[in-house]
């Protein structure tokens, strides 16, 4: 396998890991460096409602994202870690779309029924449905990212060599 593909995968993994760690860093820093902690919370506020009743707590403070988002990002991270083992980095094919649809249905039902006021979900269900959706969606998103980045790098190398 070309080294470029491995480097692209590692770059995406490291960047995502940094993003994932921020979820824990915000509550961790809350009592140590309040300003930095609030800054991190404000960054994640753009991607999550951060409602306290829908978030898990760690280090006595709520995480930077809600339980559902945390489930999604945990699913993505777990998927990324096992991806080279189960799928091969240079395999740019994606699974049948029905796996993705089925994986997103629980999260869709849980979120929609709550949004329209039919019921109130709970954090354990949010994290499970989020994890399932994030984990499966990764197998459609990551191959595309790697494939596009790899073909762009190949084109640039060709241009430089010619």
């Amino acid at each position, binding site marked *: 396998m070309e080294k470029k593909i491995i480097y692209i995968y590692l770059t995406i993994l490291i960047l995502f890991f940094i993003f994932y760690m921020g979820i824990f860093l915000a509550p961790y820093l809350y009592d140590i460096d309040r300003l930095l902690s609030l800054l991190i919370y404000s*960054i994640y506020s*753009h*991607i*999550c*409602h951060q409602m306290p009743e829908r978030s898990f707590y760690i280090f006595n403070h709520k995480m930077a994202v*809600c339980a*559902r*988002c945390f489930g*999604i990002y945990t699913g993505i991270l777990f998927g990324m870690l096992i991806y080279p083992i189960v799928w091969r980095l240079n395999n740019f094919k*994606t699974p*049948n*779309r029905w796996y*993705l*649809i089925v994986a997103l249905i629980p999260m869709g039902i849980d*979120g929609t029924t709550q*949004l329209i006021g039919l019921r109130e979900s709970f954090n354990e269900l949010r994290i499970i449905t989020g994890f399932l959706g994030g984990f499966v*969606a990764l197998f*459609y*998103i990551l191959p*595309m*990212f790697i*494939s*596009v980045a790899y*073909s*762009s790098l190949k084109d640039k190398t060709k241009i430089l060599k010619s």
Partner: protein
Amino acid sequence: MEYIKEEMIKPILIGGVIGGVLSSIPIISCLNCCCLLYVLSGAITAHLITKEYIPSDRDYMISGALSGGVAGLVSWLLGTLFGVIIYGAMIPFMGDYYPNDLYMEMMGSSMIVNILYIPLYVLIGAVFGSIGGILYEKLKNK
């Protein structure tokens, strides 16, 4: 720039504006948990470009990313506008709590800090917009 085709421009702007405007409307913006509305803007753009030509994987991703970036920018702009209006409307009432000069200074400094958030809005929008484009392609095709 060679990755951006002319046929992409209009769908990118349409998807971006729709996503950005929806992200700014108070109750609907709750859907932006996990940036769903930025993902939506990428998906809308992907849908519109398929009507223009047959896009490649890269086209889906790039158009989604650009549309998400536009959505982020529009969201920032409208959010700032609403903030200015609300802050301004509160001036007559804040006199009981803060001197007007201090309140105006607070408003000014929060505006300056707000400007620093522009790259963040655009970057987050771009990442999730590209995911929207990818997911649209995967769900549409076998």
